[in-house]
């Protein structure tokens, strides 16, 4: 194991996989930076610093800096994948699915099905998502609920650097199109990661980040850290929380959730997207249907309100589910009789 940042785990995994497999190709806006300038290539290496040095190592054919044309980027990834390559495309902000959704949703996700199972589309679409930077309504959104609802896509949301390693490697080696959602506020977080060049985490396996037994909390991404804080606070009071990090929302590890709720009978799902047709409602509904008899309290979702993401610090803080709000929800389901 070695310690590194979330963003470094992304970059190092890409380097390792590009080294291993000549079919791996990366593309995106400013992922090289400096193209066509006096400064020359490698002026930036991606605005999230997740492609620094790739151009020098692998050259212009496999490290493709693109114009601001997200539909064409996603479409090129689709075409590269159909033609036998393994593209890893960066959509700078997840919010930009607005200008490129067709290629993700109606093309990549559906090729295999529409073509009768006779082709594969091994594309990875990396996207930075989430709030926390006061980047306002068009640069802060969580989009996993939209993409999880789309058959044909796999959706991955790593929370820790080690999960980045295992899940991104799996994503690149996976033969289906994978959406890889990177939370902006986690890029700088660090942790121990596996150095095994074949370390993969299979999709559909949640991680139990806290084991308790009194209540089940399900989350992922940035808010998982807040859930863990709540769990740790409550542990001091002798209340045990199971905190489940989904890791992938499609496929989803229903078993891990149901197994926990069968023991706890109480569920809180903490989700960064607005409440309607959300991951929180998805999981609450699944549990209500499949663990009905075990439920001792109404399953609760904790989401931001049904509003766009606001700009100002005070507003964005109030928008995102806080430790306090999560704690209140957990206490509410615990106190329900």
């Amino acid at each position, binding site marked *: 194991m070695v310690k590194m940042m979330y963003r470094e785990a992304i970059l190092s995994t890409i380097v390792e996989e590009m080294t291993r497999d000549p079919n791996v190709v990366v593309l995106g806006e400013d992922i090289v930076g400096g193209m066509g300038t006096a400064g020359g290539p490698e002026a930036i290496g991606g605005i999230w610093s997740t492609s620094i040095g790739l151009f020098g190592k692998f050259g212009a054919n496999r490290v493709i800096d693109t114009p601001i044309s997200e539909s064409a980027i996603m479409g090129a990834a689709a075409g590269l994948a159909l033609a036998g390559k393994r593209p890893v495309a960066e959509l700078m902000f997840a919010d930009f699915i607005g200008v490129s959704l067709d*290629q993700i949703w109606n093309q990549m996700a559906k090729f295999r099905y529409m073509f009768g*199972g006779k082709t594969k589309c091994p594309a990875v679409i990396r996207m930075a998502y989430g709030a926390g930077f006061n980047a306002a309504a068009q640069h802060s959104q969580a989009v996993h609920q939209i993409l999880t609802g789309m058959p044909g896509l796999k959706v991955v949301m790593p929370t820790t650097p080690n999960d980045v390693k295992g899940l991104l490697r799996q994503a690149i080696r996976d033969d289906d199109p994978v959406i890889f959602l990177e939370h902006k506020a986690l890029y700088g977080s660090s942790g121990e990661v596996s150095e095994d060049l074949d370390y993969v985490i299979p999709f559909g396996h949640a991680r139990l980040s806290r084991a308790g037994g009194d209540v089940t909390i399900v989350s992922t991404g940035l808010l998982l850290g807040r859930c863990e804080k709540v769990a740790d606070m409550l542990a001091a009071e002798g209340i045990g929380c199971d905190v489940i990090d989904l890791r992938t929302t499609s496929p989803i590890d229903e078993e891990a959730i149901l197994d926990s709720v069968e023991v706890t009978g109480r569920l809180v799902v903490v989700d960064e997207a607005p409440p309607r047709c959300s991951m929180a409602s998805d999981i609450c509904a699944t549990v209500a249907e499949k663990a009905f008899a075990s439920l001792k309290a109404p399953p609760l979702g904790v989401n931001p309100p049904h509003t766009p993401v606001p700009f100002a610090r005070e507003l964005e803080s109030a928008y995102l589910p806080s430790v306090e709000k999560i704690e209140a929800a957990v206490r509410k389901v615990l106190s329900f009789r």
Partner: protein
Amino acid sequence: MQLSREALLRAYRQMKVIREFEERLHIDIQTGGIAGFTHLYCGQEAVAVGVCENLTSDDKIVSTHRGHGHCLAKGCDVNGMMAEIWGSREGLCKGKGGSMHIADVDKGMMGANGIVGAGAPIAVGAALSAKIDGLGHVAIAFSGDGACNQGTTFEAMNFAVVTNAPAIFIFENNHYSEHTGFEYAVGTNNDIASRAEAFGMKIWRGDGTDFFSVDETMREVLEYVRAGHGPAAVEFDTERFFGHFEGDPQRYRGPGELDRIRETRDCLKRFRMSVTGAGLLTDADLDALDAEVLQQIEDAVIKAKAADRPTAADVLTDVYISY
């Protein structure tokens, strides 16, 4: 360049297969046996065949909602296609895709596409793959005069220029997008090729109802693109003989328009006149092929009708390779 007798026969056969495949569909659709939206390519055969006869199976094409011609020209199996359109389990896509989603990636046919304009970026991706491989392969995006106004098509052209991708944008100008004239919808003085040129590409124009015009144009284009000079665009002026979709009342046509184009702009008639006039092939040669093709289509229909139907369980397969 003079085409060999074999090449001429093959080109004619390919065009005739498309024509008869679709004339037959046109009839069968009216009987209600075929479900879904079907867009017929009849009238444009010289484009698909003139382009694809100059490709290898390592070259890729990406097609449109009006895809039968491109699929057949690129080598998709006639029986598999007919079965697919009839919604059979034995269809090329197991009955899951239908007319608008026929593909055979192994043959370099990367899919018909129901989303107007979606193909061009996909073709650029395939072209970038070819560029990485460095073997001189190309990728072709077929687009209509309507699709040429879609943002994705424009992005793809700029993207191909910037990345020097061996992509070829073929614009089949059949004068209509659904019920609207290209003179209305294409702002550029009705000139699709010049607009592509302004994206920084070399362009060509050809007569899309004349196989020889398409063939000669494509030889030049392919030589240029295969040599690594970057992308290119070609506008072919052509005609569609049927409505936009089956059932279209075609009120947008002028009086006698359909008769006129069937008479003077039929690529099969023009081909026959050229080759018999020049003494390259005889009417008897072509008549024999015609008969063969008609039989082939008849067989395909019989097989399609008799083929296994898909079952409810089939709905669930082919979504993921692993889940």
